[in-house]
């Protein structure tokens, strides 16, 4: 954590609303992204992210400054999204709804936009087949580079439970990839792919 963040956290713990607003400004994207990947719709993600910050605001006095703030914040977001998923007990991904802000380039190549959209659909399809906790673990690993230990802390799981969940989720990932990949196979997309694991 950078120094201004530590200062904001300390001030927020003493009831400084402006300091907490700075934290919201800084962490809105990682929180929103986790909620979006968990829930699938922009509006649901917005509501979940707002709820996450409200819960964090209420509990900020109990936050231990020795802990990573992002891990703590994403833990709140993940638990909220998992609860939401359990309440619905329904697949929730709206694969045709993608936020316009997903593409970072202000004037992207149209072919890139199409391929990115296809990739997002595939991602949603794959993540949707996983249980909420497995999905949260995968998102934390591959979007936030969390270690098994960090994932365990965020989701209240033991390291062996995290390993087990990651193992199962990777299995689902490979299986689902095999089933969706032939229809979406696109040479352009592969050009934008990151290096293999």
């Amino acid at each position, binding site marked *: 954590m950078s120094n201004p963040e530590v200062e904001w956290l300390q001030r927020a713990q003493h009831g400084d609303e402006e300091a907490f607003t700075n934290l919201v400004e800084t962490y809105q994207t990682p929180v929103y992204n986790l909620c979006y990947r968990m829930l699938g719709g922009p509006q649901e993600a917005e509501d979940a992210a707002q709820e996450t910050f409200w819960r964090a605001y209420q509990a900020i006095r109990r936050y231990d400054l020795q802990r990573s703030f992002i891990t703590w914040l994403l833990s709140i977001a993940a638990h909220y999204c998992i609860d939401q998923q359990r309440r619905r007990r329904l697949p929730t991904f709206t694969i045709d709804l993608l936020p316009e802000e997903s593409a*970072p380039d202000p004037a992207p190549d149209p072919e890139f936009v199409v391929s990115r959209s296809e990739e997002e659909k595939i991602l949603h399809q794959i993540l949707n087949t996983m249980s909420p906790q497995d999905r949260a673990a995968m998102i934390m690993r591959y979007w936030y580079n969390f270690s098994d230990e960090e994932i365990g802390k965020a989701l209240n799981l033991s390291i062996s439970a995290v390993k087990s969940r990651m193992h199962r989720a*990777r299995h689902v990932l490979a299986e689902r990839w095999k089933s969706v990949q032939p229809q979406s196979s696109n040479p352009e997309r592969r050009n934008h792919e990151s290096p293999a694991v």
Partner: protein
Amino acid sequence: MNHQLYKNWIFAESDLSGEQLQELEKHLYTCDDCQQLRQDLRLATGLLRAAPMSTPIPGFTQRWQASLVERRVATQRRQVRRLFIALAGAAILLLLLFALHILATSTPVEWLVAAFQSTFSLFTTWIKVQDFILELVSFIPPVVPIALWVLITSGLSFLTLIWIISLWRISSKGTSNNESQN
């Protein structure tokens, strides 16, 4: 050949020892299925790693600030509602205890007698108060009454109105102190 072992190793990602990795590589060299599985997993995880962060629509922080005010007001209302429910519950409980006490210490005939006595006492008190007021009015000079009555009635109405408005404000919005903290 035990493919399941190698499949487990493929999914175990970075948890393998050097020896296990060597053995896995040897196996992959000869097994197309496992090779394909690892290829699929690598492509899929590559897709996950390459996916950009989704960002909220602009103005998230302003929406947060607005929602913070709304949530605080809602929380205060809930607290006031809970307080009223608790007070009403306590009053009902006291009434029940009082009723139980009466039931346990007296008979129905005694209740009837007590109720009759109370009603009679109330009635006589009311008549006494009426007589007292009439006597008091008869002493006041004839010019004063209308102006005095208008003044007293207006004052009492005004105080009652303020009392009702204050109760309504506290029950709907919380105390002014809490609001000023917002």
